[in-house]
């Protein structure tokens, strides 16, 4: 499932991804856009972990701008799902939605809509 290699690599050898955060009330919202794969999964995971406050009940991950995600990206979501009771995958792009469906992760991520 790993995906590393030439296509789409930035100058640092990492695929390009943007991680933005905001809050809806007390719920942190993470907006991912670009490509989430083996080359940057670790960086994204640290970024999300950093902003998760202790005792957060819910986390929203918005992925409408995510054009590609591989199994390492799924691992990030699965890992984060361990840290908060409820994780919501909001507005997944068709590619992400299909990946989540086929890998059975829809069971642990609340996909909306």
């Amino acid at each position, binding site marked *: *499932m790993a*995906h590393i*290699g030439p296509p789409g690599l930035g100058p640092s050898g990492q695929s390009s991804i943007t991680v933005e955060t905001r809050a809806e009330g007390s719920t942190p919202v993470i907006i991912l856009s670009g490509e989430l794969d083996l080359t940057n999964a670790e960086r994204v995971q640290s970024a999300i972990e950093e902003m998760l406050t202790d005792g957060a009940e819910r986390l929203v991950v918005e992925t409408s701008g995510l054009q*590609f995600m591989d199994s390492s990206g799924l691992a990030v979501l699965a890992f984060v*799902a361990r840290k908060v009771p409820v994780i919501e995958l909001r507005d997944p792009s068709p590619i992400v939605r299909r990946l989540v469906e086929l890998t*059975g992760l829809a069971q642990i991520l609340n996909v909306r809509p």
Partner: protein
Amino acid sequence: MVVTPPRGAGSAGSRRRKPIRAATVVVGVVGLVITGVLVVVTLRGHQRTERTLLNLQTTLIADAGEAEDQLYVEYHLGGAASLAAATDGDAAMFRQAMSTAVGGGNAFVTGSLWRMSGSSPQLITEVGAQPLVPVSAAVIRDAEASRPFFVTELRTPHALHLAFAAAADGKDGTFIAYAEEPLPASRRITEPPGSPVAPLNLAVYLGRSQSMSALLETDSSAPLPLRGTTDTTRIAFGNTVLTITTSPRGSLTGDTGEVLPWAIAVGGVLVTLAGGLLSERLIRRREIAERLTGEVSTLYMQQRSVAETLQQALLPQRLPDIAGIEIAVRYVAGVSGVDIGGDWYDVVRLDEHRFAFIVGDVSGRGVRAAAVMASLQFAGRAYALEGHSPAMILERLSRSVDIERDGHFATVLCGLADVGARRLVLASAGHLPPLILSGNDAHFVSIKPGPPVGITGKATFGQAEVTMAADDVLIAYTDGLVERRGEMLDVGMKRLQESARRDSSSLDDMLSSIVTELSEGTPADDIALIGLKWHT
């Protein structure tokens, strides 16, 4: 693995004296040739300038000398002769005219006036000192025929005089004015500093010859005739010529002109040496860099090959022989560098009629991913041998891996086949659905997948049951086969469907052409593929 340290600078080998590289020799030769050419060009230019200057100065000296000497003789002596002709040889007038030219520091030391009547000269009057030798009739006769004046040398063992004689025709005959100018016995003259002649050695000869006997004067301490760079010019002087020869005392263009070629030579050699050293250094560095690159590349290949060997070792070396079933597998390593991937497949024979198979893919890469893969493979094999159903096998595997603890999770497809009953039970932990090829129809088995193993220890899995007809083929695979960046998974799965539907002579050929068609050379990710074909 034993790693030999790279032999870089500082190892014993590099202290040995190394031969100079060809490129350095070329740099040196080119540098020296350029220097040589520059030196020659500069030297020639310098010499040409020196010669031009010498010619120019000699001409100037000659012109000035001609004007001065000719005028002096013509003015005083010619003037006195003309005066005598006009006054019919008036002695008093002659003496008065000559008083400004004879004696008292003037050029002439003696003067006399002669009348030619017939062929014998008659002395009219004399001024100044006695002539060096008595004035000969021949000189006076020669003077009569020489215009504007006659000049000759007079020598005694102790002195040298130049004798001048100018003639003028009067009513009753021709009058000749005669004068002598003494020259230093040594012929040496000293030019005052700042004179245009000062930078030059100068030798003046009477007549065309440059013999010592013809030398009138010189300011040169060097032996005569002058040697080296010389210039000679001749100017008319009375009935004869003066030959003026010059050579430069030093450099006429100053010291810079003289030193420049040698400065260029020294500078050029130094620059060439520096260039050679630099080139040698750069070449050596490059050689070291190339060697290191080669060594790094070798190490990389070794590591990669170790990773591949390890991966191959983890996969089953032999597939079980099960009557009525043909099994084929493929494993293709992706272009992902040295990191080992986590794809695997396994087939476990349970009894005569039944066997289990597993295809899985651990997320990420590296040794840890491979370790997770190995543990899942061995655990899956054990659970299958214990007789668990596919759903139970996945449930148990889910408890054996934890993404938080192990850093990886895995998608797994597990199947249990009853060959005789043609029954196949399948369960999926987040794995892509297998493809069944039945006659001309190719479709993906609909299995409700549970989460990948390692995500949650409380996962439960559904099962799908399918019945296989004779010659039906099931293909289970990892996502490397169908996944492409920026593309829906369904597109890749559709490609697989179409590729599988094409006619193939055997199961093995089918897998080969599927891999070739879908991976397009070297795939980005690893691909594991298993094909099962029912023969009964």
